[in-house]
């Protein structure tokens, strides 16, 4: 064991961590927006939208992330970072849509009927009545989704983005200190995941749902 190698490569590890954080954060925001939208459309009761969004979810959930990533990068020919972001967003949005749908189901039919009878428009109904209630239910499953995004972001190393996983491999190649590097990277991933979990739990407390 030679833990000094981690200090020697601290700049590389910091860059990797920064890229992992950046890619994950952008992908989380994108996937949340797209996923909640798709989930709401699927729960909208409009037949055509339901079928379209159901197909979208079915297609994306049955393909591995790496297939989407390599398709966007090697076949479509997008640059590395946009391919990575698009693949992560597309992949997780299908799961977040499912979480949103479950949330919608938990809000009783009576709520949207009551909102409609008060003369709310569909947009007002979602913004003022349904989404705030869904939020209470989906924060916890959403945490799992966000941790998934962070974990999945390690796949972007395979198309040469210098994230944490890539740096670990690089250290292994240059110094054969794979064990030390992998330990450090794993711990860093755990810290990031732990921070997300802690943040989301705090949010749940603030919303008074725990």
């Amino acid at each position, binding site marked *: 064991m030679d833990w000094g190698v981690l200090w020697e490569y601290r700049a590389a590890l910091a860059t990797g961590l920064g890229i992992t954080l950046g890619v994950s954060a952008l992908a989380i925001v994108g996937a949340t927006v797209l996923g909640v939208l798709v989930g709401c459309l699927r729960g909208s009761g409009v037949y055509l939208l339901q079928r379209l969004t159901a197909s979208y979810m*079915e297609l994306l959930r049955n393909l591995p992330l790496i297939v989407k990533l390599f398709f966007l990068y090697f076949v479509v020919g997008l640059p590395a970072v946009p391919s990575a972001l698009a693949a992560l967003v597309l992949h997780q949005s299908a799961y977040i849509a499912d979480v949103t749908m479950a949330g919608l*189901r938990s809000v009783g039919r009576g709520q949207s009927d009551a909102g409609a009878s008060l003369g709310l428009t569909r947009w007002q109904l979602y913004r003022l009545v349904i989404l705030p209630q869904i939020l209470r239910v989906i924060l916890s499953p959403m945490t799992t989704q966000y941790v998934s995004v962070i*974990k999945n*972001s390690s796949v972007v190393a395979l198309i040469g983005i210098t994230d944490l996983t890539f740096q670990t491999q690089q250290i292994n190649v240059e110094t054969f200190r794979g064990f030390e590097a992998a330990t450090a990277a794993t711990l860093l*991933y755990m810290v990031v995941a732990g921070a997300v979990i802690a943040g989301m739990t705090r949010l749940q407390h603030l919303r008074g749902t725990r």
Partner: protein
Amino acid sequence: MTAQIWIWRGLVAATCAAAVWLVGQLDWARVIPSWQFLLLALGRSWWLAIVAMGFGLVAAVPLALLRVYGAPWPRRVAALVIEAVRATPELMIIFWVYFTLPVLTGSQVSAWDAALGSLSVIAAVYLAEVVRAGLYSVPGAQREAAYALGLTRFAAFRLVVLPQALRNMLPALIAQLVSLFKTTSLVYAIGVMDFFRAVSVTNSAVFAPYPLYLVLGAGYFLSCWIITRVVRRFDPGYQLAE
């Protein structure tokens, strides 16, 4: 409503027609000679998923039992192991087993064994959570009733709790199999000739990205779709929700 149904059917028909036309346009002559190689690799992905699922399940049951019924310290250790592995990216786990463990043990494992090993570890921790949820889904009164009838602890578990827990966790088990099947594509990174790598290798040899990626997508989609259909058959909750 009926108008939308016809629009949807029209869209499906148009998509199918466009897909058939597109498939006809592609250069299949370069891909067809590799069909046996690709099919074999798809089988290898299935094999990896199913065997890792089997190993995973064997390891998951004691892990879950330890986490649910164990003494305080074993329970904490089991929880720590499960949470630590679950917080680590799957790709990192594969790298760990292939590149890093040999440094500790001093003997190199083959890429295939490393793939099988890491997928089994991944399956074990996720399945442990599935088993745990299954055990919790059985009301405590069932166990108490079994004790009241004079069953031993083990008999109560084997005859009363486990059968009910198994039935409750069947959908989640098969959902894990889908997830695991998709995860097998990551062993590409350590050079195992799974379906994903086989398609990449074929593409490097004959350069026909469009038909090959279509085959790749279709292979994974159909495999997962078949497993998902099976899940829904076993999941009354899902059918009610639809």
